[in-house]
């Protein structure tokens, strides 16, 4: 390696889940959960060609770290790493990795799911779906180039 792992990171590089698992593993941990959000080809009958993620990087990393703090407060003894990839992602690429360790498994599952729910609410990252016949920012965004008026 050589480089130190950033536990709350937004990066344009491919994600390596095992590094984050290893980061959260320690002698007091009995359970490690890992979530990987991967790019799905078909959604509601529409075929995605690829995705593009964009982030407000410094704020996104700050928010990821805040989620980590919330987790270690809510589930004592847990350790967390959350990393999100941005840029262009192909089908099956990993967009987000959440690794949580905890003395017992229940907390490791709950805390992990809490993290993804919070990411989807508060972390300034946006996804653009690229279809065969167009593209669109996901979320509830109201500016669509195709429907723009003058």
């Amino acid at each position, binding site marked *: 390696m050589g480089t130190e792992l950033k536990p709350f990171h937004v990066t344009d590089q491919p994600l390596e889940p095992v590094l984050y698992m290893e980061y959260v593993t320690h002698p007091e941990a009995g359970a490690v959960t890992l979530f990987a959000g991967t790019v799905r080809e078909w959604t509601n009958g529409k075929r995605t060609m690829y995705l593009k993620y964009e982030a*407000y990087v410094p704020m996104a990393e700050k928010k990821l770290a805040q989620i980590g703090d919330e987790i270690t407060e809510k589930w004592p003894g847990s350790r967390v790493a959350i990393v999100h990839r941005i840029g262009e992602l192909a089908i099956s690429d990993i967009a987000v990795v959440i690794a949580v360790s905890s003395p017992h498994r229940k907390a490791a599952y709950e805390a992990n799911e809490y993290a993804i729910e919070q990411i989807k609410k508060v972390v300034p*990252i946006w996804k653009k779906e690229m279809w065969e016949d167009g593209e669109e920012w996901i979320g*509830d965004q109201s500016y669509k180039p195709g429907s723009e008026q003058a």
Partner: protein
Amino acid sequence: MIHLHYFAGLKDAAGKAEESLPWEDGTAADVLQWAKTSYPAFDFSAVQIAVNEEYVPRTEPVKPGDHVAFIPPVSGG
């Protein structure tokens, strides 16, 4: 001067990722009003505002040197 940051659909609508704006005094609501007027093609109704990388209410004071970001509904994960 304040620094404005645009993302996703708003970046497309504005045609830029950031810009600076002469500024002396006001609130997040005032900055939002300026953006609405400047980029009428974008619907700001669901947009949140962050000042210096923290979400703030519309009533938050904005001072020269601040970074103001318009945060459309996020879709990470």
